[in-house]
């Protein structure tokens, strides 16, 4: 009888644990390795964009190299899902969180909750509006990147009397959206020949980028350029332009350095992007978490990571989400 009860209990526990895994972190992302230093959570805003998949995987890989078990959590751009992940992470006594937040303001409470539970938080790529809710924030210098991209944009139309362009913005809750837009406009708005005929959000999403661009093209069929706050939207905009037969005439500018955009730049189909370095940011976050775990507290609260303009002239130097020479 006792043996039967024990077997039933074991079976129940096994079923429960397998159920937890499939509903918690993304299936297949749980490390099976024997992690000597404990568990590290990699919380990513969305895995629906290849750029963030690279960010998450690079963080996980580096954490594992440093001796941790790393688990990726997908927030699916939903602050509520992110909050639920943090509840689980705090309950699960993780050693650190490598965090790509969904919302600059909305995610502060989650990070503070983890910090209050003595779980250090290290932000990657996306910022939270606080200087005490994370140990360090490793962020792309989107503003400077878009200043450089803005200069390149202006150069492309040198001598033209009027240039009509469209801007596709990202998520309104992400500081990157506005830093990129402000950096770009800090240059382009100085030249009176540039006229922005439409500015709309497509939420950093490829499908929305396509849909928004299709709508804009109906109202403004004579545009010369599109500046997109990320490469996913640039791909969507490019698809819309191809469908409308305007891909040759309208120059597309993105931001990220995604592989598909790099390929299209090399084929002369997209004008430029700005290479962020997701692997550099993810590895740095994992390394800082390891140093923190080892007792080091001498860290800058915010660490900007430079962004580089990629165009037809230098595209051969870039690939696989970084510089080819710096793999």
């Amino acid at each position, binding site marked *: 009888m006792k043996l039967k009860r024990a077997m039933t209990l074991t079976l129940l526990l096994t079923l429960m644990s397998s159920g937890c895994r499939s509903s918690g972190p993304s299936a297949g992302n749980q490390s099976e390795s024997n992690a000597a230093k404990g568990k590290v959570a990699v919380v990513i805003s969305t895995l629906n964009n290849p750029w963030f998949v690279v960010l998450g995987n690079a963080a996980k890989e580096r954490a594992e190299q440093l001796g941790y078990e790393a688990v990726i959590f997908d927030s699916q751009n939903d602050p509520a899902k992110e909050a639920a992940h943090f509840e689980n992470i705090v309950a699960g006594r993780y050693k650190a969180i490598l965090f790509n937040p969904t919302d*600059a303001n909305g995610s502060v409470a989650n990070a503070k909750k983890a910090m209050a539970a003595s779980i250090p938080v290290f932000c990657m790529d996306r*910022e939270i*509006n*606080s*200087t005490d809710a994370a140990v360090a924030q*490793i*962020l792309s*210098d989107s*503003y*400077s990147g878009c*200043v*450089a991209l*803005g*200069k390149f944009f202006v150069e492309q139309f040198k001598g033209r009397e009027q240039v009509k362009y469209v801007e596709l913005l990202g998520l309104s809750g992400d*500081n990157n959206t*506005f*830093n990129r837009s*402000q*950096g770009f406009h*800090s*240059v382009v708005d*100085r030249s009176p020949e540039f006229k922005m005929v439409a500015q709309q959000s497509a939420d950093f999403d490829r499908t929305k980028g396509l849909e928004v661009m299709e709508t804009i093209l109906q109202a403004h069929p004579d545009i010369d350029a599109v500046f997109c706050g990320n490469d996913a939207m640039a791909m969507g905009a490019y698809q819309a332009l191809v469908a409308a037969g305007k891909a040759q005439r309208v120059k597309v500018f993105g931001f990220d350095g995604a592989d598909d955009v790099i390929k299209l730049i090399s084929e002369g189909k997209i004008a430029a992007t700005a290479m962020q*370095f997701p692997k*550099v940011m993810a590895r*740095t976050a994992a390394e800082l978490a390891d140093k923190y775990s080892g007792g080091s507290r001498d860290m*800058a*609260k*915010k*660490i*900007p*990571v*430079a962004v580089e303009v990629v165009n037809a002239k230098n595209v051969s130097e870039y690939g696989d989400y970084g510089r080819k020479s710096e793999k």
Partner: protein
Amino acid sequence: MPKTFRSMETMEGRVRNSVSKNGHRLLLVGLVCVVAASLYIFPPFHIVSLEKAKRKIENDRFSPKEFVESLWNERLLKSLDQAVDAGTLLSAIAQDPQTAKRQYGRQLGLSKTYYYFVKGQARVVSIKPDAVALSMSAAGSKSDLVLVIANISGNGVRDGTGLLNVSDFPNSQEFNQISAELNRHVETIIVPEFRQKVFVGAIVAFAGCAEIEDEGSDLRPLRLIPVQAHIQ
């Protein structure tokens, strides 16, 4: 029991009931008064006009213009003595750019871009619509430095002076707005006055910031965004 006694007892009961009811009423009135007073003194919410709410949001919003005015007058102008002497820097760059960068340069985060904060005196050798070329020597037309007098972009002034730390700003948008406002300050306050007075052969006392994006850049002449430029 005689009828008189019974009616007296009933009356007493009525009086007692009435007193008890009045007591309850008084207690209730007192309680209502206390609650009303508490709500008056500590209201759980305030009703404000939409206009007033908008004004408050506007007042609470970060003002890059006010921040930069205060930064410029109270800190930046007082920090000019921390800038490296132009002659010293140019000699160091001529000897070894890497050593000069390590000794006098400033870098922010993980980036190849670095900055110099430079001061000195030099002679104007040429004037173009977007730049004034300066020579450190008493004779000759070769320019060692260039003061930019056109549209200014980038973070040269913000990051070159080393007065601001990104870690002190909860929202990087504010940090970036400061950069744009500093550039605007140079364009609207420093450059117009300098442009009006400058002439070839004039001796200029200057301080400025150089933003170098690429290690392979030719640093002769060194391009500076002026934060001060006076004709001597």
